[in-house]
């Protein structure tokens, strides 16, 4: 009898443990969906000011309208996806791909200037929201250890040159933005240049550190995928350049 009751108690503890684990998993899944919210909100804003005028002008049954509707579906449907990975693919790759398609199809459409200004600002906010999404929560970050000791190395010449070039580039962009006639676009270009400048400085500092240390290592699978996305983006730029839409 005693053995049976102790076995029952053990089974009860196991069941309670499983129950707590499943509650924790549910909470984590819920948090992942909540973390998507800023991206969906800023993406919706971008859709309203960048896609909607194009689709409304061309008609919802037209290719532009259908593509814009597809972009909205990707965005709004992303929290309903069964896994986090699919959600991220929808909210980033799916939304951007349909956006690119919409813009390509509507390349001859003229928009009022105020829409263009709002649309640029909305893309900025969408980019920032995406950046926040990819930054891990404090609880997810591993406990950092101090940098390992390494042998002495000669000072790199490339790192300061890279920093200097980046600073000059950012300064050049600020100077170029001064020449914009429309006041709204000039203010917007300051914001864009500021955001770009911060990102450029962040990247160049980390690349400069690499040039200084010359670390070597193998990229993980996810970074290989990021490389493919980067190459796709560059291909997209080249395509729009070749077709003449971006330059003519």
């Amino acid at each position, binding site marked *: 009898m005693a053995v049976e009751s102790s076995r029952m108690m053990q089974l009860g503890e196991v069941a309670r443990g499983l129950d707590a684990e499943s509650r924790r998993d549910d909470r984590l899944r819920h948090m992942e969906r909540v973390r998507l919210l800023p991206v969906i909100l800023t993406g919706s804003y971008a859709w309203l000011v*960048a896609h909607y005028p194009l689709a409304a002008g061309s008609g919802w049954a037209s290719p532009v309208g259908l593509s814009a509707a597809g972009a909205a579906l990707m965005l709004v449907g992303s929290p309903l996806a069964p896994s986090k990975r699919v959600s991220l693919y929808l909210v980033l790759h799916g939304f*951007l791909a349909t956006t690119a398609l919409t*813009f390509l199809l509507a390349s001859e*459409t*003229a*928009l009022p*200037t105020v829409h*263009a*200004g709002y*649309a*640029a600002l909305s*893309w*900025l906010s969408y*980019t920032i929201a*995406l*950046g926040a999404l*990819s930054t891990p929560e404090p609880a997810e970050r591993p406990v950092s250890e101090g940098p390992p000791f390494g042998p002495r190395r000669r000072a790199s010449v490339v790192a300061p040159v890279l920093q200097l070039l980046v600073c000059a*580039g950012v300064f*050049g*962009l600020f100077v*170029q*933005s001064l*020449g*914009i006639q*429309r006041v709204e*676009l000039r203010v917007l*270009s300051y914001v*864009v*240049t500021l*955001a*770009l400048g911060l*990102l*450029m400085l*962040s*990247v*160049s500092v*980390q*690349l400069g*550190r*690499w040039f200084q240390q010359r*670390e*070597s*290592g*193998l*990229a*993980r699978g*996810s*970074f290989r995928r*990021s*490389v493919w*996305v*980067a*190459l796709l*983006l*560059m291909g*997209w*730029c080249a395509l*729009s350049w070749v077709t003449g*839409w*971006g330059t003519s």
Partner: protein
Amino acid sequence: MDKLVVGVALLLLVAGAASVAWALWQWKQGGEVRGIFWVGTGLMSMWLAERLVAHEERG
């Protein structure tokens, strides 16, 4: 950090800056929609470069 990642990050850095510079030029000339396109492309490529190197630093 992998050399391939560093190369792509450098390319993205240059492409992002060039895209935004071109967007500002378009805005100067009155091409608002094209400017938006290039601003979006530039910021996205720069953000991607930032994420690439940040992940590599952590990884």
